[in-house]
């Protein structure tokens, strides 16, 4: 079932939580809402669920306007950040809850209910825990109970609020892969909220990056990474070197503009300087798979950061105090908040030029 949000606005007291959201989620898609805390992503998710009601705008499911419909009538599965399991009910009864509260005629008979709950517990690999109470489960198991409970009512749409937020790192990674597999099997339209870009990249078909109640960019992980729509997206997706500079028409076709170049550390190379000028290496830290090197160019306020992969570093080790020339394999240019045209193959030259024209 597809979801269309148009011009959604939501104010909470005097703050604007959502400032005009337009978003279409295709049927069967797995979409991530990614952003820092307070960006409105959870409010947006709850608006889709019918747990919050927007001040303006429309929510449509498969073209049908559901804006005025409460959560009870929307038929969405919702997995809460802290699971919201019913502590006084067993795992079995938690999963069966949505079936038991149906109207008399739509309520499944006993045998069917048991079969159905059994299947779901099988799906989330918790069959042998049916008689336990939530307090007797680990975090990852509770998460799966919450998921089975949401799926029991056969929702058209599955919504997950920070689904892995409360888990430790290893369980998190396992559960992430498991959830992706599950989605590939059942193909229900799903939206999840996260502040972790790695999680969004690994799980989602598309990612909507949010900031201050707006969607900054929607796209695949590749699009976001290689063609970010704004400096915010660029900064949010990981560590990045920022260089404010003027550039010249001979490289880019754009002349004398105040621009900012964003270069990812792993797109930056430090090459030993041939002449007696360049950036001086300040620190070298071995991170295992990569080596993190910081070098300060006298014209810059902050050191440049490069990540060399291990093989490359071992072939050409660099030590503190060495003078190097930075060169970028890839960079993104912005004028204000506007991205500039692709600079093509000569990106390394642009960086050198940028450094030369630093003010």
């Amino acid at each position, binding site marked *: 079932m597809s979801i269309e949000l148009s011009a959604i606005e939501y104010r909470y007291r005097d703050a604007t939580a959502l400032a005009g959201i337009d978003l279409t989620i295709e049927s069967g898609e797995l979409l991530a809402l990614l952003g820092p805390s307070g960006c409105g992503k959870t409010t947006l998710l709850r608006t889709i669920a019918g747990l919050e009601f927007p001040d303006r705008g429309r929510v449509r499911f498969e073209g049908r306007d559901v804006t005025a419909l409460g959560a*009870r009538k929307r038929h969405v599965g*919702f997995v*809460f950040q802290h699971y919201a399991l*019913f502590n006084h009910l067993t795992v079995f009864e938690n999963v069966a*809850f949505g079936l038991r509260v149906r109207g008399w005629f739509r309520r499944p008979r006993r045998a069917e209910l048991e079969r159905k709950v059994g299947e779901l517990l099988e799906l989330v690999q918790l069959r042998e825990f049916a008689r336990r109470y939530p307090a007797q489960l680990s975090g990852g198991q509770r998460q799966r109970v919450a998921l089975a409970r949401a799926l029991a009512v056969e929702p058209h749409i599955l919504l997950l609020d920070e689904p892995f937020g409360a888990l430790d790192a290893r369980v998190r990674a396992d559960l992430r892969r498991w959830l992706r597999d599950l989605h590939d099997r059942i193909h229900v339209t799903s939206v999840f909220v996260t502040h972790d870009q790695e999680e969004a990249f690994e799980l989602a078909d598309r990612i909507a990056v949010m900031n201050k109640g707006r969607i900054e960019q929607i796209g695949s992980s590749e699009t976001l990474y290689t063609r970010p729509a704004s400096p915010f997206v660029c900064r949010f997706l990981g560590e990045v070197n920022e260089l404010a500079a003027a550039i010249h028409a001979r490289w880019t076709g754009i002349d004398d503009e105040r621009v900012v170049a964003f270069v990812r550390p792993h797109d930056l190379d430090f090459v030993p300087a041939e002449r007696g000028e360049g950036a001086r290496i300040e620190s070298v830290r071995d991170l295992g798979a990569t080596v993190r090197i910081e070098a300060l160019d006298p014209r810059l306020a902050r050191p440049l950061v490069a990540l060399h992969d291990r093989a490359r570093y071992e072939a050409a080790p660099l030590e503190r105090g060495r003078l190097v020339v930075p060169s970028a394999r890839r960079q993104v240019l912005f004028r204000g908040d506007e991205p500039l045209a692709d600079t093509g193959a000569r990106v390394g030259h642009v960086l050198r030029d940028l450094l030369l024209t630093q003010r």
Partner: protein
Amino acid sequence: MSARPASNALRDPWWLRLPLLLLALAFVALFLVLPLVAVFGYAFEKGVDFYLASLADEDARAAIRLTLLVAAIAVPANTLFGIAAAWLITRFSFPGRGLLLSLIDLPFAVSPVIAGLIYVLLFGAQGLFAPWLAAHDVKIIFAVPGIVLATIFVTFPFVARELIPLMQAQGSEQEQAAITLGAGGFAMFWRVVLPKIGWGLAYGVILCNARAIGEFGAVSVVSGHIRGLTNTMPLHVEILYNEYQRTAAFAVASLLALLALATLALKQLVGWRMRRATQAENPP
């Protein structure tokens, strides 16, 4: 209660411990234990037979019946109100919420005598509604309805006061989950809310009941002390005492004291269950 690490810096030296402990225990013995023992001592000072005869007295039995009747009306009414008020205050934000909260606390600041007085001013012989009541031959003051009203006024905060902080702390995620799973208001209340607040609710009802049965000042103002008709147990105790039937007065009082002891015991039990329930929800 969590076990405290027996750090030396936290332990008072014996020359401080011993006097403080003795002083505290002496105070408890004088002001709490002695009166409690005295109630039963005086009740049985003329033997078990006299005690039983005092309770079997026609007026005493009428007073017990009336007290139970009043509690049977006031406690359920205040329980329903308490649940509604706690739901309203903890689950919705609306203008006037703060005012509502202070109104709920009001009876704690009002003397029981004044609680009785306000109903006399409304329904009494010279009251606001006196002409209407006389015309329709309805009696509220010096009759059972007045006693019920005054009792409800004095005891209505107890359930709400107990539930509001509890429901505030529990949050509403489980209720939201129930709604997204298709539960209606009634199913959500029975299957999710009630089990969640059960022990706190029991606690509030116990306190409300104890106060409803024992209320004296407010009831005394509106009752008129008509023997066999508008005398509740505490009022009956007063009448017997003032008529120098001390032992009979203490016999009835001992029933009320037993109720108080049962209330304290239930309170400990419920407090223990509540702590255990919260521990189960947040395992270490």
